[in-house]
């Protein structure tokens, strides 16, 4: 019965194999083996609680610098969680300056102690590692600290740190090994002397004067928080910042960072990194516009030049699991199935999937339910909101203005926008030139919203509700009919009324 309930899409794909495997339940050690204990893997294994036998394999290969961590994957250990906490610390750097304007007399100079902050951050991360272990236990999911690889479509080989091999068989296998930061291997000294975000969140000592290479959200977030806690930080950008995001918004984010002290080396590419006898790192780079060569010394060089999927050690090629040649990611169907029956994948390792924790979690849960025959619901990868936790936070959902123009034509979209001043900036005498809202709508008909963009304090908290409105198909009039909440930043979103077409000044004045 349950089998019949599953989506037709599944039947089409695995019709011939599906029925026999179902009959063979009991032949395998596990109903489900999940390789990778990150956000998606943990969600999938914990959700698979329909009388099934489940195991999750997690293993962290240390970084070049030897950094390693516990259960929970990128998000918990070297991503979202430590990043947001340090971002919060950095916001305090600005808040301290604001506080003086608000009447707080603080004796100068205020020092920031990296070790104190990291102790707090790491303790929290360890408590989450432990929490995940406990949850797995509660849900009777077998946790194995093995490095998993595929032997065949029902068999996984687990390797312990000591090199001991264990063979596990499973009816279904889910690969959720995520990704790791890349090093630019063609730059001499890059690997020996540089670090990545995987190391950043476990540094015992302040990184000091830092060069961040790259302009992805990871690069900008790291540079932002390093500046915020008072470190001399430079971002080296080869071409553009926040590729894939709305470029006007990206410009505002980097402008704000520059205003608040982050240095940018635009259109520059690093050439080599040398360690001087003093221990400082000398970086040589080329300005691609002038062709000139420049040098400076740093205490740390952070490579944030992209992430690579963790597919190499999985033995996918042997089984013929189809990968995207360019990205190395696994090609997936809408139901997260790979080209090999019984083998599924999700999260950062999936080709074309957003590299975001919430999508991995949701996809993992839905997959577990489908595999257990509890539901046929597929993951919807549209309308995914996200927030970049740069010093000026940027939240968005839907299309960028460029993408909307491309899909609908410049004349068929209407962009409502506003430059607003958060009330918290006024008394603090802070410049709010980059606090901006942009609502991209269809120009005609009911003006359905195609994309919504917000830079300002608490952008993540602001955006979630609007993302839901967006998911429900909100139009411009849905926004304008909603009564504002005064005085907040979020109210400026429902108050937008100046269009780009009109050419009028979009600065908000008064209440």
């Amino acid at each position, binding site marked *: 019965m349950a089998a019949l309930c599953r989506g037709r899409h599944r039947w089409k794909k695995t019709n011939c194999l599906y029925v026999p495997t179902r009959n063979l339940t009991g032949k395998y050690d596990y109903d489900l083996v999940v390789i990778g204990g990150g956000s998606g893997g943990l969600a999938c294994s914990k959700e698979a609680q329909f009388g099934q036998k489940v195991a999750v394999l997690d293993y962290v290969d240390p970084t070049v610098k030897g950094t390693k961590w516990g259960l929970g994957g990128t998000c918990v250990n070297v991503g979202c969680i430590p990043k947001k906490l340090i971002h919060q610390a950095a916001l305090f750097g600005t808040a301290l300056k604001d506080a003086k304007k608000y009447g707080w007399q603080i004796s100068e100079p205020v020092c920031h102690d990296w070790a104190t902050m990291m102790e707090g951050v790491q303790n929290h991360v360890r408590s989450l590692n432990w929490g995940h272990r406990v949850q797995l236990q509660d849900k009777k999911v077998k946790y194995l600290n093995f490095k998993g690889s595929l032997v065949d479509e029902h068999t996984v080989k687990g390797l312990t740190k000591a090199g001991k091999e264990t063979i596990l068989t499973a009816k279904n296998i889910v690969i959720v090994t995520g990704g790791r930061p890349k090093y630019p291997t063609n730059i001499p000294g890059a690997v020996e002397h540089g670090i990545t975000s995987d190391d950043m969140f476990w540094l015992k000592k302040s990184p000091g004067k830092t060069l961040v290479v790259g302009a992805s959200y990871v690069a900008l977030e790291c540079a932002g928080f390093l500046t915020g806690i008072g470190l001399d930080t430079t971002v080296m950008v080869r071409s553009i910042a926040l590729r894939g995001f709305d470029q006007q918004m990206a410009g505002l984010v980097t402008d704000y960072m520059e205003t608040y002290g982050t240095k940018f080396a635009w259109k520059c590419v690093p050439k080599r990194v040398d360690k001087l006898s003093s221990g400082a790192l000398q970086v040589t780079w080329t300005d691609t516009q002038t062709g000139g060569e420049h040098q400076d010394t740093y205490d740390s060089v952070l490579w944030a030049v992209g992430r690579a999927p963790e597919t190499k050690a999985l033995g996918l090629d042997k089984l013929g699991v189809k990968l995207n040649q360019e990205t190395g990611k696994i090609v997936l169907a809408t139901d997260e199935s790979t080209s090999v029956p019984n083998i599924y994948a999700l999260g950062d390792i999936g080709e074309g999937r957003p590299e975001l924790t919430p999508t991995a979690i949701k996809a993992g849960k839905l997959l577990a339910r489908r595999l257990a025959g509890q539901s046929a619901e597929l993951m919807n990868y549209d309308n995914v909101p996200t*927030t970049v936790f740069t010093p000026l936070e940027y939240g968005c959902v839907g299309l960028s203005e460029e993408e909307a123009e491309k899909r609908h034509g410049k004349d068929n979209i209407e962009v409502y926008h506003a430059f607003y001043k958060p009330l918290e900036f006024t008394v603090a005498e802070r410049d709010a030139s980059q606090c901006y809202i942009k609502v991209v709508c269809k120009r005609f008909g009911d003006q359905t919203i195609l994309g919504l963009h917000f830079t300002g304090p608490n952008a993540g908290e602001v955006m979630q509700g609007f993302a839901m409105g967006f998911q429900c198909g909100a139009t411009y009039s849905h926004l304008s*009919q909603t009564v504002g*909440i005064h005085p907040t930043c979020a109210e400026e979103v429902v108050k937008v009324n100046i269009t780009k077409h009109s050419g009028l000044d979009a600065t908000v004045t008064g209440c």
Partner: protein
Amino acid sequence: MLCRVCRRLPAPAVTLPSFLVMAVFTQLTRMRPWRWFICRKQFLSSFGRHGSIRRNMASDRAASQATRFDFLVIGGGSGGLAGARRASELGAATAVIESHKLGGTCVNVGCVPKKVMWNAAVHAEYLHDHSDYGFDTGNVRFSWETLKAKRDAYVSHLNRIYRNNLDKAKIQTIQGHARFTNDPEPTVEVDGRKYTAPHILIATGGLPSVLSDAEIPGANLGITSDGFFELETLPKRTVIVGAGYIAVEMAGILSTLGSKTSLIIRQTGVLRNFDSLISANCTKELQNTGIDLWKNSQVKSVCKSEKGLEVTIVTKDPEKKNDEEKTSTIQEVDCLLWAIGRQPNISGLNIGAMGVDTDERGHIIVDEFQNTSRPGIYAVGDVCGKALLTPVAIAAGRKLAHRLFEGKKDSKLDYSCIPTVVFSHPPIGTVGLTEEEAIKSRGKENVKIYKTSFTPMYHAITSRKSQCIMKLVCVGKEEKVVGLHMQGLGCDEMLQGFSVAIKMGATKADFDKTIAIHPTSSEEFVTMR
């Protein structure tokens, strides 16, 4: 409609000050040709009338000289200004009468300075947490004087912006108290001058309620929220009376900034018209943050001594019938603040004589289109006593302007699903029905509640902790979300987007379909089970 607009042009232009002549001219030049034609007819014929006016001058000079506008707004607060500016944009000759500073309650003694104070208090909380985040801030002192100077400067800046906005929109600002006259056509008098218009909007707002010395001896030794914004120093010892959101906000701000604060409430919880979860949690949070809460208590008398005020309070738990009333005194109080509610600001308006109906508390009764019982007179905002919120007044004022001057007959504000935030510590956000209201209107069996509570990640590494609580009130089989209530860090900025979705008719399934933004607190709403 159009003819009427034109007829209201200041007819006896020759007797008017030059700016009004200019106004007529601008008005005429701004008009479309066909309107201009009708107006010219009107204008020429008015010279004929002008003669007759002259003749009557001796008998009724003042009435005949009433300056005419298309739209006359009494009250330069949020609702009045918004209505006036929109009407002016739509071509109506508009004037605003204001007795005090432009901007009304919100700008001068409400939302804006309140939130500035709240922000200052949030910094105090941050300062507690700084060391946990690695900052060594050493000795920190707070200067109320610095803050007040900055706040006042900002408010004055806003006053000027409002003035400029009116001037730019060619709206005349009339300074003074308005009083309806006994003229047959609704007319108001300000400082001996008369003004009239076919459409008069009352947007005079409200005032903090006060108690007389007859009700409570020494009551007038206390201040209200208006007085709070005049305080020149941080009170050392504060007593606040009231359980509404203003009492809660004031108590939070003063206590967080370092004043030893007692809050006197008549029953056992604050915010009793909010969802019970919010009411209970907010009451708990007030106590957690060090506010001395006096439940089942009332102020009996206040007297002044050398060391400050002595506030005598009686406490009696109604549950314990046999208990005696307990009388206590709080000594050395340097700030007693009454936050016992607000009342409509209608004194001196003489609206009774106009046949404008009011309710038993004096609020002007309006229909859904903001019409009062007297044709040609409208009211928006706090003076109507419904949803006392700036954005509500603004929206209602604008909708009315569109109805009156753009011919949009159905233009009115939908008062359902109005989101509101209380800037408590931590802030509260709420929209739609409370659980209790939903059960009452839909029956317990049709109501499903989803709840969660957690410690926001911000507090993961701080020694100071506060919870975030969230509740969804759903009704019917489709689990339509009719209410959303929360208290916690960031709830002030979370609510707006959700209120859009709830107004759109979102169901629990829509919440579930929405992808989370990680790591935020608001994502808990879309991952609730």
